């Protein structure tokens, strides 16, 4: 499998104990009474040239995590390093020259394009901000980008509302590519598209990765699509990464009870196999991120819950080479090798 053959050499993005809390104000004097812990201590690496899939149910903090890594928010704690530059606490002004290396593709292609700008102006915006090209050079570059993502150059003067969802997503991808980035956060880029168009866009993303040597953080809740595109996969639950593993082993033998439940929900196309499969159905709802349970975040719904789970938070550690899990079931092997997310 690709997993071992294309073992990436060094981490491009390092995320250490990333925290993103949104304050809750209430009362007469608008005092801070709590915080929504959207992302609460996430640690992982994204290797150069790989695609790290970030999966989880809605509301678990996937998108917030992606945005916090690009510093679209001012993060509450932790550190993010992209290509060696520690950007966690940089001001937006200092961050600006580093922006070309990291870009983002958004979930809703309708909302992520300004309805009052032509396609050309949208794709040109990054060039306007970061390059000193002449108008003619920019126009040429925009044409090239439109070719790259498979859009007809004739449509350069049209407005986003005149395009279909898939075409709009291509415009968004062209905008992200304009500055030759190294790292692209794809925030559910296919969630708002038809299934037939999803495949086109994912294939386009894969082609571009090959062509430009891109590194993706691919956020999605579509497990079969992540299986298709990702090299390694991180599973998030309630603001924390519960399991991180290469694609093959994760789908063959999920370790964390939550991952097991999640994967058992993927429809099995073979009816014979589907009959024999064991479906894990979780009870209850996801606890509020403003008030997570004591101990393990998953202890309220875990089918394999133990007493210790309700008391002590499990450490996120490497239990097998390249496989990280945060669960008490696997903690008996010792906590000494609890290092960061290197494989």
């Amino acid at each position, binding site marked *: 499998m690709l997993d071992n053959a294309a073992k990436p050499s060094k981490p491009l993005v390092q995320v250490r104990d990333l925290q993103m809390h949104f304050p809750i104000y209430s009362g007469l004097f608008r005092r801070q009474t709590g915080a929504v812990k959207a992302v609460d201590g996430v640690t992982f690496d994204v290797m150069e040239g790989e695609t790290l899939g970030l999966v989880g149910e809605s509301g678990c903090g996937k998108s917030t995590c992606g945005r916090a890594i690009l510093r679209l928010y001012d993060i509450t704690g932790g550190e993010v390093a992209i290509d060696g530059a520690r950007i966690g606490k940089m001001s937006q002004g200092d961050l600006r*020259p580093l922006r070309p290396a990291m870009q983002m593709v958004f979930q809703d292609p309708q909302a992520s394009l*300004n*309805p009052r700008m032509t396609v050309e102006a949208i794709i040109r915006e990054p060039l306007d901000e970061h390059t000193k090209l002449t108008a003619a050079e920019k126009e040429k570059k925009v044409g090239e980008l439109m070719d790259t993502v498979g859009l007809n150059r004739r449509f350069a003067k049209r407005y986003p*509302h005149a395009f279909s969802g898939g075409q709009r997503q291509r415009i968004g991808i062209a905008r992200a590519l304009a500055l030759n980035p190294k790292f692209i956060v794809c925030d559910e880029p296919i969630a708002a598209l038809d299934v037939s168009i999803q495949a086109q866009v994912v294939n386009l993303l894969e082609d571009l990765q090959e062509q430009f040597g891109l590194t993706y953080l691919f956020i999605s809740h579509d497990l079969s699509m992540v299986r298709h595109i990702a090299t390694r996969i991180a599973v998030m639950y309630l603001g924390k990464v519960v399991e991180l593993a290469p694609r093959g082993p994760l789908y063959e033998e999920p370790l964390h009870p939550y991952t097991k439940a999640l994967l058992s929900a993927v429809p099995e196309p073979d009816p014979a196999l589907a009959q024999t499969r064991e479906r894990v159905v979780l009870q209850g709802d996801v606890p509020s991120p403003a008030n997570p349970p004591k101990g393990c975040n998953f202890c309220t719904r875990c089918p394999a819950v133990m007493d210790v789970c309700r008391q002590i938070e499990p450490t996120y550690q490497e239990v097998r080479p390249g496989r990280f899990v945060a669960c008490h079931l696997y903690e008996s092997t010792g906590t000494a090798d609890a290092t960061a997310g290197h494989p």
Partner: protein
Amino acid sequence: MTDRDIHADADNLLVAGDPTAPVKAVKARNQWLDVWDQFKTHKGAVASLLFLIFIALFVLIGPWLWGLDPAALDIRNKDVRPIVNALWGAEKVSWAHPMGTDNLGRDLMAQIMQGGRISLAVGAAAMILAILIGTFVGVIAGYFNRLDGILMRLTDLFLALPLLPLLLVMMLLFRDPLRSAFGPEQGIFILIVTGIGITSWMHTARIVRGDVLALKEREYVLAARSIGTPSRRIITRHLLPNVLSPIMVSATLGLATAIITESALSFLGLGFPPDFPTWGKILADSVPRMTAFPERVIWPGLAISLTVLAVNYIGDGLRDALDPRIRGM
């Protein structure tokens, strides 16, 4: 489907049929032409534009062609009725004064022309000032959370001020220094425009702030931030064009309010000097004898309401024309 689209499609077919044909971007059509095309489809807006041009020519070139001095007294020809009254066999009409004269024999048409200059100038200038202040305050308050509280409380403060007494106090305090600095007409013009401008920006500010609050959370603003676009260019490139519609609407309403506020000031005798006609003033002066001479109220009233209506329609058409979704491009 317009002709343009059909041609474009025909070109596409040609390209599709012949793969060797060089795919060249169609020469960019000026976007303002598209705006004009869309504007033309709004019948009311086009009619209003023509009317506004007519009014503008009437008040700008009119006095020069008409030649009568609006302030010239002609006691012998006082209380001449408008020429239309001849239809039902009226008393005293004259082609020399088609709109009639007032109780001092001053020609009404000349007064309407002269007054229109002032009213339109005051209305437009005060509206532009109010829109500029309102948009600025609204955008800053909506975009920068830290300034939101202060600026909105300032807006509330201005809204809570009783406008007319405030304007009256301003007139009393600043009329004489401004008059001596800029001359009687210029001085009072500046005073009235500033007075109306700084007391009517609040509604625009509130509307713009509300829209900016919603727009700044949109993904395209987030996308601009991820590109590294600085705040000032996010505002000018992404936020302002998208709050254009409410600004446009408040601008047209603002023009109407400004003309009417100026009338109110003139009515109270605190606007322009007594011998200086404006639409509001002509109207105010004629109210005591309105039952005997209704035309003296009707002419300026008609001028004010038609101008305001025309500006509203133009604003409506312009708003549609500037929105690419409605324009269908």
